[in-house]
């Protein structure tokens, strides 16, 4: 059984947010909803300043606090390590959102508003019903795509080759190799969550 993870090389990321757009399209997310994004910032003082990037997505933790607090078992851990939310079970209590130290969960709004004042587009009409109003969702490494043998949308689309997805237990996977070759870090290691999203910088 694989143990899926993602390695994000922040040196390569340029902040174009192709991943963010691809994520929204792959998951049919309406206005205000982000499973994943890259925020552009900066550090240093002119002229020794540079652009910085802050990425956000579910860390697919091996020890996920969101999972522990879910009262209805909607948040689940798959054998491949991917943390999913079963929308049919979710009651929208949002305990998971409070428990997640990474603030990566979103609530599906109760009103289905699209991007345009002229009403929902055919695409929006087709995709928005995939989400249950009032429930909590998040990135699940595009679990349905994984089951079809495809990459998560963000990793597939990344024009910078910054996002590398793979089986961390497979020494031949590019993701595993990157972790062997580079110093890496995870977000909030002290939180004890054991994330499966790794960063190289």
């Amino acid at each position, binding site marked *: 059984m694989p143990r899926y993870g993602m390695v994000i090389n922040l*040196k390569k990321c340029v902040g174009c947010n*192709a991943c963010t757009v691809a994520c929204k399209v792959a998951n049919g997310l309406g206005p*205000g909803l982000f499973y994943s994004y890259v925020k552009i910032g900066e550090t240093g003082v002119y002229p020794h300043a*540079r652009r910085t*990037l802050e990425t956000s997505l579910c860390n697919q933790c091996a020890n996920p606090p969101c999972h522990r607090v879910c009262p209805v078992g909607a948040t689940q851990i798959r054998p491949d390590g991917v943390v999913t939310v079963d929308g049919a079970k979710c009651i929208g209590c949002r305990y998971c959102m409070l428990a997640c130290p990474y603030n990566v969960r979103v609530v599906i709004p109760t009103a289905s508003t699209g991007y345009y004042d002229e009403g929902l587009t055919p695409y929006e009409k087709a995709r928005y019903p995939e989400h249950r109003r009032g429930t909590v969702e998040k990135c699940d490494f595009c679990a349905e795509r994984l089951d079809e043998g495809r990459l998560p949308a963000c990793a597939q*689309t990344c*024009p*910078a080759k910054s996002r590398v997805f793979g089986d961390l237990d497979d020494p031949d996977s590019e993701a595993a190799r990157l972790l062997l070759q580079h110093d890496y870090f995870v977000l909030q290691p002290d939180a004890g969550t054991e994330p499966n999203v790794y960063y190289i910088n």
Partner: protein
Amino acid sequence: MQTKISRRDFLKTAAGASALLMTGAGLGGVFRSAAAAPTPEEDEWVYSYCRNCIAPWCGIKIRKRNGVAIGLEGDPEWPINRGRLCPRGNTSIDGLYNPYRVKAPLKRTNPVKAIDNDPGWVEISWEEAIATCVDKLSAVRADNPNKLVVARGFGAIWDDMPMFRPLFGAAFPTATATEVNGPLCPFHYGPLVVNGSFTCAADLMRCNYLVTFGANYGGDFVRANAGADCLYTSTALLNEALERGMKLFSFDPHAGGDQKSSGVWIPIKPGTDLPVVLAMAEVIMCEMDTRDDEFVRFRSNFPYLIKADETYCRDAETNKPLIWDEALGRALPFDSPELSAPALTGVYTVNGAETRPAFSIIKDKVSEFTPEVAESISGVPAGTIREVTAGLVQAAMIGSTIELDGFTFPYRPACVHYGRGTTAHRGGVYFMFAVNIVNTLLGALDVPGGVVGGSGFGDFLSPNEDGTVLPHKFKADEWVDDEFNYPVQSFDLGEFYPHRHSTPHVVWRAMLDPQKYYIDFEPEILWIWGANPFMNNIVRDEVEEAFRKVWVLDIAYNFDETSQFADLLLAESSNLERVGFTTMVALDLDGKHRGCTGVNFRAPVVDLVYNTRTGASVIADIANAMGMTAQMNGMFTAMAAFPPGSVTPAGPQPHTFEEMSEMLLKALYGQDKSLDDIMKNGSYFTAQPWLDRDTYNYYYFPGRSTRVAVWEDHLHQSGLRIKGECEKHGITVPGWELEKYLAFYKPYPVWIPHPEHEAPPEYDLFAVNWKVAGRSMAIGGVTQSGVLREVQAFTDPNIDTIIINAATARARGLSEGDTVLVESQFGKSLTGQLHLTELIEPSCLGFAGNYGHAAPLMGKYARRGLSYNQLLSAKDGNFDPVSGGMDNTAACKISRLK
């Protein structure tokens, strides 16, 4: 009387009306019927290519359920992008269902054209629309074909090639055809004279030390493929080069994606790049006194003897340019087999005239530009210029070689390159010349590690009769002289701007006042496609007037400013609904094949959303109805490059564009192929068996077999020729003092301060802008995309703000979020919110991209933000009179609004 448009009511009406039409007949040459009723179970992936930038080679797949596109991604099987897409490409579904599209053919009923005036659109049938076009075009053709003006933009590029150009080539061969998108990216004259190629780029595969000026190497433009045309915009290739250890030094007023991680940002005042590059040449030629001697003496025209009038000294017998041979002590034709020791310095009397090698003249000129002089102009410390230059020379490893696939190349893994930030200036061509000089001194042209031509591989460096690179026939038109007609015959004034990339800003003025531009007739029809001069040509007031003056036919995708001023709108299908094809020369980023070529086809992949058509398809119908069938068939066949012996649309038999495209598909890939297959399975490509060796054009013209032109005699001759014509006719270049114009036609670079450097002192800041990943080229309705604009606003504080250096702001008592008025030296202004940053040179105001559409029906996302270009000027005298490049900077003052 003017009436305000009610956006929502109008859009509703148009949508409703077109839905009715969609079910009916009258769709003419539409390839796939929109009326097919989908079965409830239909859920499939279909294939196309992305057209949301100028390099439309990325394969895409679209998930279609019951005729609706519900998903889209890069095609993992397509070798050019391997599943990757940029943010623009990922929003192609928004381009399809964009509610602000033109939904049916429309004709204007309100003759008063104004940006906020309701045109009184009335929906008409395609038959009526085409009949109107045929009547109008036939009448003007019978009267004077030159009364037609054709304007294209990035929105039509590629789609236009197979149809638009053949039609006009056949029916209106001498009419004005201008590219609206050109003059803010006039990037081509420089590479034409040294690479023989329309574009050039640093060899990211092997370069170890890259110095860029005003360029964007993938960090902000962002491309998911690496077309050979401009592989430097490939984000993945840049990353791989940096990972390999390439050093990147970016001279730029603003630090963006390129400088983010491994690159070194060297801030520079806008428009002052030329003095810095001249100083680099000064350091190499005068202070270090070093060079690639073989390249300089035998592969450039540095040793050509120049007379006092700055023209070549030619052999009396053969007319060939002469070189002084130090060993023989006499002048020899450049290609003499006796030549062994070309002189670079000294004064020689030849044929009674005193001559000097071009090298020594250029050396004298650059000697005035010490790094200290460059520092006083650019703000870049002299020590930095010396340090970067010394590093460049060292990294170039002059004299080293590399063997690739059994062929020995010079190995020069260091070079200087540039982008539109430097070339879109008055003097931009001189800037490219200066870079050419530095790269020639290094010997870093078309060899591994250097600056390589981007138009393809093969016969690009073949020499002309003077021994210097003859620009390749592909896109060499910028180098080729235009005939001088008097009276002038075209509104883009090729007579005075023979080497223009394009001069649409001149076109609008000349249409308004033909007499001033020596044109003895009035324009009657403007046919525009995929172009928006209101946003991009700077001279919006003149564009408006020109559009009022003539009957405007617009192949229109959305209700932009162009549509708002048009008379007839031919509603254009979105990228996912079109038939089309593009030629492709691209690299495989994952290395499975070294490169891929071919013609990439597409067919509609979803049901038509509205009553729209592929632009090229409408043009074919118009051409056939005008009786131009045979001519157009012939030109299509020639332009599409059918393989020999194939069945082509030649002859008097009329064809739809869809039929012609399918004939090409069958001719290239087999008689069993169809556009339907393309939709279901994707297009075809040819994996090239290229070796590494084959991708460097030095290989085809090695050693001493050609020479790059650092002394650009051809340009100089053009200036002299135009001067002679002016004197003969007793005229001047319209809008220019002749001497001021001719100052840009020297054979070597000259530093002439730009308009922004001549502003009154109260305009104490410079406005600059740059490309952003979510907009680059604004094709396919990306500025209207709800998803894309939301993502930008959520992730990037630079978007839709006025960006200022934090210290500069503090010194003026300005704070983050302040509402400010920016007034440019040209009497134009913008209002917006400040964003303070450390990532911009202190004398600058920055603008990310170009937003702020004015047309009422463009939608809230495109109307948001700021239209940077409106601060600039493209008046005669303010642009580059060689390339036509508009000056991309304005001096500005800033004040806080209460």
